[in-house]
């Protein structure tokens, strides 16, 4: 089962410039760990000791994972994951 993960510009140095990469895992945390195996270093830019970094938002099928089960959010076939930095609106 491979999941598409959209990578923001600021993290593309870890993915050789790729916008869209694939990773695997039954939960979001597993997917990020798998992502870090293929793109070493990206994991610690997304997570810190407390979990998801403050200025990082991750969406599974466009829904913010902080309102799902966070890193324990279940990931299924055909789900899409988007990583974005938190920016100002308004």
């Amino acid at each position, binding site marked *: 089962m491979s999941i598409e993960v959209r990578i*923001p*510009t*600021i993290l593309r140095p870890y993915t050789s410039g790729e916008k869209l990469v694939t990773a695997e895992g039954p939960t979001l945390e597993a997917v990020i760990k798998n992502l870090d195996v293929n793109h070493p270093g990206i994991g610690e*830019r997304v997570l810190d000791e407390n979990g998801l*970094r*403050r*200025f*990082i*938002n991750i*969406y599974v099928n*466009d*829904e*913010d994972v*902080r*309102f799902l089960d966070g890193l324990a959010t279940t990931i299924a076939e055909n789900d899409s994951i*988007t990583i*974005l*930095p*938190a*920016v*100002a*609106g*308004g």
Partner: protein
Amino acid sequence: MRFDSLLDSVGHTPLVGLPRLSPSADVRLWAKLEDRNPTGSVKDRAALAMVIDAERKGVLSPGVTLLEPTSGNTGISLAMVAKQRGYQLVCVMPENTSAERAQLLAIWGARVIYSPAAGGSNEAVRVAKELAVKNPDWVMLYQYGNPANALAHYENTGPELLADLPSITHFVAGLGTTGTLMGVGRFFREHKPGVAIVAAEPRYGELVYGLRNLDEGFIPELYDETLLTTRFSVGPSDAVRRTRELLELEGIFAGVSTGAILHAALGIAAKAVAAGESADIAFIVCDGGWKYLSTGIYQGTLDQAEDALDGQLWA
């Protein structure tokens, strides 16, 4: 309806049903027409509330210069309020915003200082904070952190919604300063706790996320995650598609951020239908489509519209 002045007419906006976009008689959508405010956007509420609050605190002397980072609507609202109350206004606005916004700001007498496109509103906030330090006599009301912004929605938008739609189950709005969602969210938590508070967050083109490092990320000081039930990210394609559906099916000519909000509202409506639940879903029409005509998004294919919005701060 009669009011003593234009400023007195802010708020009290109509809530209209959407018979064609609502999926069933049990799952209904309701649009709160904030484009009916004096400058045509929901931001009139926050702008007026912040100015009155500052006046009460004695912060504003006659002729003082206000300073505000804004992607447009708040600046336009503040320009109108400032003109009525006798203040000057300097807006810091990202350069990747629609031409109409700058024209409207000029019409209401505001001065615009542009911030770089890359980084979007983050940059506008940064530049405005620098200007505030350099010009200590200017007053920055600062919509992202000013409690009066959220309070306007706690005291007015929320009660208006509950009075017009006592059966409300969901409230959906855009996540910019977070003022609307925080104020309405707090109101419902206290007065009808079961109402789901749903944020629709615009997902811009890559230029807008062009931070130099992750520590430059920005979360408005007003934001309190515990007031939200959930939060959706909506891209420009879905936002434009829904903006057009709203026009085509219900006759409502709205800006693109409203399309993003409608997309989230329709997603919730579909879930309610699938679960066999009834729902009354109210959402915010932030502004009319007038300010976005030059972007070309109301005509041509969706792909063309999406291209036109790429790199723009469209919400």
